């Protein structure tokens, strides 16, 4: 930038041009950051690289020259894929904010009839897999469904006589996904609202701000990092969705990937589509990081007690109750009731001795994966805090891309390198010892767990990072100055303070793995099924009523953790206060 002399003379206020010496200093410091990659960062980078392997495999595949499919796609459906994916992402983001934030604000800062109950019940839709809610609502709302049939009979309408919103459409998909994904935003928003200092709230009240203004001007901006983290998780999940958009006939990147791969037999072009999807996600992540840049959201002061809940009585209280009941009703009660009605009828035929192994497999995989992923998230999150080297940052971000990619794509990304490792080990063993080791990793539970790690790490990492960012760095410094090792800081200072965030991470991943289908389906060993696999097998044969018992079992298995989750957040605050 070249400033003309007269403008420099006039420039009295900001922006202030940086003096050359300071500029050089800043550049030197930035370069220094690149140079100081110590050995302590290497394990973090190594782990992150391993987790990024599936996505990197897909990107590598995408580098090969594809067939003539691209030309064809560009001529026909590519524009649709891009636009639909974009609208889906924006729509689901907006929808989850609109549902999740007001609900979180109401239950965390107000008192109204049913609040204690809503506090955890609002999380319940999280336990419902997106494609299940899509199936149940289609059954209720489409042309052949009971609602429209009753309308037609009552008013003697025929097809041309009335307009009814089409559930199986892009807006329908947005609503379905928003209804089951808003709890992510709600969860993080609520934690953030609870965490806001009472002092800030009191100051704004003293300055004459009404409740609405306090919400818009104070609570909301302060909760921004949590909200953006929640929304970006939700948007990634929406981009990766396959079941719902496929059933609704909405062409997105995900459906395109499978169409090109399955229908046109072109795996390379499919990988290239997946790479484009990753570009979307990358933009999303950059946006999230930029919006968080430089802002510090931990509290500087010491006074930090729980804000008193504002009582809402009369009409206000009733309105608040209704506002909280809506997402619960549509996101959980209605679909669960439909499932229960189906299950009552079909359970006697469908439930047999095979149910218990399914349940056991689902629960074991979910809890094992949750712990593993939590450990990895702690390692990466903590590594990032201790050594914010750009390379570490990049590696950790790359490890998080898997969440936005359809599970099948991640699974293929696991399949290829694992098979290559198996072949390598096998060849080596044959050459040196004359024995074949066969498949060591492929087709084992280890492969399934690895795929979960590659896919769900960001869920845990978001929570762990959010927790870490609320711990003042001065505490680390104080502990280190008092002679504590970095491990000691983690064990004695951070872990107790992080307990709430850790529970959140653990339980979020647990519920996600419980619902996970595609990676489990492709990578699982012989004679090994889960609830999600069984539900899928029946639902994909369009035997929805038969699949209901198993879908309901997923929902029920998820409810326990959801309730625990809510209690965990309730405790976060007390833990925080307990540490002076």
């Amino acid at each position: 930038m070249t400033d003309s002399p007269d403008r420099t003379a006039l420039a009295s206020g900001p922006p202030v041009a940086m003096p050359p010496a300071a500029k050089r200093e800043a550049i030197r410091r930035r370069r220094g950051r690149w140079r100081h990659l110590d050995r302590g960062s290497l394990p973090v980078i190594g782990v992150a690289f391993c987790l990024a392997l599936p996505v990197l495999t897909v990107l590598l595949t995408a580098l090969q020259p594809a067939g003539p499919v691209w030309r064809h796609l560009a001529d026909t459906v590519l524009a649709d894929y891009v636009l639909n994916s974009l609208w889906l992402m924006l729509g689901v983001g907006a929808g989850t904010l609109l549902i999740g934030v007001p609900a979180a604000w109401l239950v965390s800062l107000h008192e109204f009839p049913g609040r204690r109950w809503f506090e955890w019940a609002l999380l319940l839709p999280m336990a419902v897999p997106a494609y299940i809610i899509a199936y149940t609502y289609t059954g209720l709302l489409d042309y052949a469904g009971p609602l429209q049939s009753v309308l037609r009979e009552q008013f003697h309408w025929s097809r041309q006589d009335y307009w009814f919103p089409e559930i199986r459409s892009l807006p329908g998909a947005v609503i379905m996904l928003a209804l089951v994904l808003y709890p992510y935003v709600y969860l993080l928003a609520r934690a953030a609202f609870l965490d806001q200092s009472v002092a800030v709230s009191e100051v704004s009240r003293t300055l004459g701000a009404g409740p609405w203004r306090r919400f818009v001007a104070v609570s909301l901006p302060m909760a921004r990092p949590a909200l953006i983290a929640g929304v970006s998780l939700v948007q990634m999940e929406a981009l990766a969705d396959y079941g719902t958009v496929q059933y609704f006939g909405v062409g997105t990147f995900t459906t395109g990937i499978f169409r090109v791969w399955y229908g046109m037999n072109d795996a390379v072009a499919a990988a290239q589509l997946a790479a484009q999807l990753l570009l979307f996600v990358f933009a999303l992540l950059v946006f999230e990081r930029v919006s968080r840049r430089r802002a510090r959201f931990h509290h500087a002061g010491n006074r930090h007690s729980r804000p008193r809940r504002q009582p809402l009585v009369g009409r206000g209280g009733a309105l608040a109750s209704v506002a909280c009941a809506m997402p619960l009703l549509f996101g959980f009660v209605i679909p669960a009731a439909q499932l229960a009605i189906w299950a009552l009828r079909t359970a006697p035929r469908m439930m047999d001795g095979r149910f218990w192994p399914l349940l056991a497999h689902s629960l074991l995989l979910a809890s094992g994966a949750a712990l593993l992923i939590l450990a990895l998230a702690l390692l990466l999150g903590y590594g990032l805090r201790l050594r914010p080297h750009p390379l570490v940052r990049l590696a950790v971000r790359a490890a998080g891309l898997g969440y936005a990619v359809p599970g099948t794509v991640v699974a293929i990304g696991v399949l290829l390198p694992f098979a290559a490792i198996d072949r390598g080990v096998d060849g080596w063993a044959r050459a040196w010892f004359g024995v074949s080791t066969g498949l060591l990793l492929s087709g084992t539970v280890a492969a399934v767990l690895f795929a979960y790690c590659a896919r769900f790490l960001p869920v845990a990492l978001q929570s762990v990072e959010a927790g870490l960012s609320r711990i003042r760095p001065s505490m680390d410094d104080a502990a280190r100055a008092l002679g504590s090792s970095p491990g000691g800081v983690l064990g004695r200072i951070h872990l107790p303070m992080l307990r709430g965030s850790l529970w959140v991470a653990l339980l979020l991943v647990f519920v996600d793995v419980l619902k996970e289908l595609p990676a489990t389906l492709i990578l699982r060993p012989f004679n090994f099924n889960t609830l999600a696999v069984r539900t899928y097998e029946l639902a994909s044969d369009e035997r929805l009523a038969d699949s209901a018992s198993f879908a309901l079992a997923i929902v029920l298995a998820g409810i326990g953790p959801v309730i625990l989750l809510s209690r965990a957040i309730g405790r976060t605050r007390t833990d925080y206060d307990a540490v002076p």
Partner: protein
Amino acid sequence: MPDSFKHLILCSVAGLASVLLDAPAQAEGEVNIYSARKEDLIKPLLDDFSKQAGVTVNLVTGKEEALLQRLQSEGANTPADLLLTTDAGRLAAAREAGVLQAVNSDALAARIPAAYRDPDGYWYGLSVRARPIIYAKDRVKPADLSTYEDLADPKWKGKVCVRSSDSVYNQSLVAGMIGHQGEAKTEAWAKGLVANFARPPKGGDRDQIKAVAAGECDVTLANTYYLGGMIVSGDDAEKQAAAKVAVFWPGAKTAGVHVNVSGAGVTANARNRANAIQLLEFMASDAAQRWYAETNNEYPVNPAIAPSATLKAWGEFKADTLNVAKLGELNPAAVRLMDRAGWK
């Protein structure tokens, strides 16, 4: 660390270890299957085989493309002996990918017609599924229906419901038409059909049938086993819908009804080859054929075996005689054609 965490960790580690150590063996007296056919539709048959032959059967189900990918990437080390798919095109693709081996069995050749197996014995069809026209009994006279081609006629404007072109059933139907009439004619047909859509394509085959029953449209294309499934459904609405529609077998004077097969092939690196062939022969046997086709309302490949009572009630039909392997070959062309025709 809090105690609850410790307990959780201990329990999970113990549980996972027990699962990990329970690895599938590859001992003798076993056969390992990668199956795109759902567990419910095959497991009882495999259990029967286990009992009769004394061979343990291990099963992984999944989507065909993914199973094929798994087979390919595992290469020579694959534990799978048999690949079972629900679509002949995928079997042809598997042969092309080099993951199957030729099996010459007189028992199989005698029971399975040539149109439903690979000419060189790389795979064998086990059941036939047909995709007829389903129409509303109260609004459509069967006399007005004739062929698939006829559905593109303007007289059906706004009366056709069809599933998305993402569905492999529609893809292979179009592939079959390309095989008979070439791309240009088929594309013109697809455009005509799209112009007749009552609404954009969405939902599964059962949804199309329900839409016809509810009056959203008059005709649709659906595989027979979906209609069969609705007749015995646990959902009363589905039962009622199924009662309002009927099956029409198109193409009596042209190529016939579009059919595809579910089938299986022995993998190139099968370690239990003999067991795998034995299982294939078992599945082609009379009793197995009857059960295998009936549980999914499909037709037995062996023409000597009578179909189930439900299927018999729908009447006889002339099946397309194009070798089903051709469908796989033409599938990519079919998908591109449907994209161009605006068939969502």
